């Protein structure tokens, strides 16, 4: 089945009208993940944009057509470990156990439980939709926020200009846990993303699977809603967000990028980087190139 | 009720020895209680614990302040003020030492002294200088508070057969001296 067949023939398990921003990457990712995993799924969605958008529900109503719980901001992976333990004990390993969390709940306060669940090889798929900040609370910095980004906690002022530090490379860190499957994905490369969600679910039957998906955020990034997919594509093409997967310890670049565009092509569309001067942009380019070299090395040599 | 205090050093097996006594008396249908002193136990550091033996339920859950019996696994502890604190007049001291009675500076309250050089016994049976099981043999002989056969079974079950032999040899070799315990 082509990815278009998959997407057109599978049921949308998310409420049709949910309170995510126009052009939200998170909503797109959530819907696709659940379309592919199907109804035999339990999902945990911690506080963040997706939980805040009402997908867990309101009052006595469900936000999804499948069982869903809003765990704590910092315990998605451990709470689901308990669910997984129970489903294994009941002999119902056919049930897909999925966590879907933003970068804050994944890379920051949720990282301890995530890392431990990966180390234990818990049978689940953990999806991080990375919009590079705490968007649900008004775009504060996270550890995946890119260097130079303006956020509400790393504002541009007279003496400081946005976030000082480079982002934490969560997908590579997760790969180093020896998880069964780790991949990055972009909604701009839908075929690749659909295949990775499928692989992730398959891997979750025998180990820990982790997907790190870039999630365009018109509100936080201050970009036009219609440009989200375009930005997601440019993030990949500039090597700002390269696409790779690590399966059974083998690194593979799923979308090779022989002729990368300059990172400024991606950054130009985002007001969060608008204040950066030539030197700072050059630094970002340098970081992106270095990161890409590392990935090239890993995909070349660890295969 | 008999109140006993144990003194030793980290690594000498004070806690396990006391627990073995409790297990034995419980197995024998009686009552025992042991509370280890809650310090930071490190190899070599002084450790102690509180043991009570009774023929009915032991309700009190406190440290032992006025012991009738002291079980001391290391004679280098004799100079510490805590070691003999509160010992009842005419009380019993079961001591691991290679020294003679004349070399020991014991308080006058001691009524009965049981001396055992546990090191050679431990070395010959268990190849390591861990005196606890040998001292259990000395304790059993000196106090008569524990069913000796049952204690040996518990020692063997907890620590292994060589320890039973160590306890046995200690039981035979311990020297029990009546000092009268003058006030």
């Amino acid at each position, binding site marked *: 089945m082509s*990815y*278009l067949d998959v*997407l*057109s023939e599978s049921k*949308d398990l*998310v*409420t*049709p*009208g*949910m*309170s*995510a921003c*126009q*052009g*939200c*990457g998170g*909503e*797109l990712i959530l*819907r696709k993940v659940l*379309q592919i995993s199907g109804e035999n799924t339990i999902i945990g969605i911690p506080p963040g944009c997706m939980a805040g958008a*009402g997908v*867990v*529900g*309101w*009052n*006595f*109503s*469900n*936000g999804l*057509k499948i069982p869903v719980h809003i765990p704590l901001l910092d315990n998605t992976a451990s709470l689901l470990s308990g669910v997984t333990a129970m489903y294994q004990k009941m002999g119902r390993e056919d049930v897909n156990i999925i966590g879907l969390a933003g970068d804050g709940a994944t890379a920051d306060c949720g990282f301890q439980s995530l890392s431990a669940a990966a180390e234990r090889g818990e049978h689940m798929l953990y999806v991080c939709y990375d919009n590079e900040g705490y968007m649900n609370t008004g775009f504060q910095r996270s550890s995946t926020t890119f260097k130079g980004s303006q956020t509400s906690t790393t504002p541009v002022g007279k003496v400081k200009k946005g976030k000082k530090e480079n982002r934490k490379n969560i997908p590579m860190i997760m790969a180093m846990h020896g998880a069964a499957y780790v991949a990055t994905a972009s*909604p701009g490369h*839908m075929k690749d993303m659909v295949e990775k969600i499928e692989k992730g679910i398959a891997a979750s039957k025998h180990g820990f699977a982790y997907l790190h998906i870039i999630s365009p955020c*018109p509100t936080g990034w201050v970009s*036009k*809603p*219609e*440009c*989200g*997919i*375009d930005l997601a594509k440019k993030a990949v093409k500039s090597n700002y967000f390269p696409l790779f997967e690590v399966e059974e310890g083998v690194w593979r670049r799923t979308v090779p990028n022989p002729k990368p565009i300059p990172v400024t092509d991606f950054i130009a569309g985002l007001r969060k980087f608008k204040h950066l001067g030539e030197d700072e942009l050059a630094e970002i380019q340098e970081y992106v190139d270095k990161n890409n070299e590392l990935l090239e090395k890993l995909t070349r040599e660890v295969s | 009720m008999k109140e006993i205090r144990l003194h030793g050093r980290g690594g000498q097996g004070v806690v396990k020895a006391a627990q073995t006594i409790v297990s034995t008396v419980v197995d024998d249908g009686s009552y025992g209680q042991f509370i280890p002193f809650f310090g930071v136990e490190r190899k070599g550091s002084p450790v102690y614990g509180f043991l009570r033996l009774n023929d009915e339920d032991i309700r009190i859950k406190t440290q032992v302040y006025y012991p009738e019996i002291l079980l001391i696994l290391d004679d280098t502890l004799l100079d510490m003020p805590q070691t003999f604190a509160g010992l009842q007049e005419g009380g019993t001291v079961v001591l691991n030492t290679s020294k003679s009675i004349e070399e020991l500076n014991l308080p006058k309250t001691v009524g009965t002294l049981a001396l055992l050089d546990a090191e050679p016994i431990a070395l010959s049976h268990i190849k390591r200088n861990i005196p606890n099981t040998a001292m259990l043999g000395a304790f059993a002989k000196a106090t008569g508070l524990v069913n000796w056969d049952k204690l040996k079974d518990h020692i063997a079950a907890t620590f292994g057969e060589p320890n039973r032999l160590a306890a046995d040899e200690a039981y035979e070799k311990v020297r029990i001296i009546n000092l009268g315990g003058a006030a």
Partner: protein
Amino acid sequence: MRKYISPIGKEGLYVLDTASWRTYRPVMDKEACIECGACMSFCPVNSIYRDQEKKYYISYDYCKGCGICANECPKDAITMMLEGEGENE
């Protein structure tokens, strides 16, 4: 109210009228469409469907009017039109 002992939702779906968010609506030119599926696959709210004949159509029930479909269509077959205009096209 002791209907539920702990907060749970099973009364039905919690649905918002997100169609009311729209100021522009995407309008598809079926003639220009090459049926590549980009609009469907990129629509964040799953408001674009493919029928049995693999033709694509837009549902306005929940479309928020973000404009991604129009922006991503390789043939510019989707146009964003102000609500109330071009309704009959």
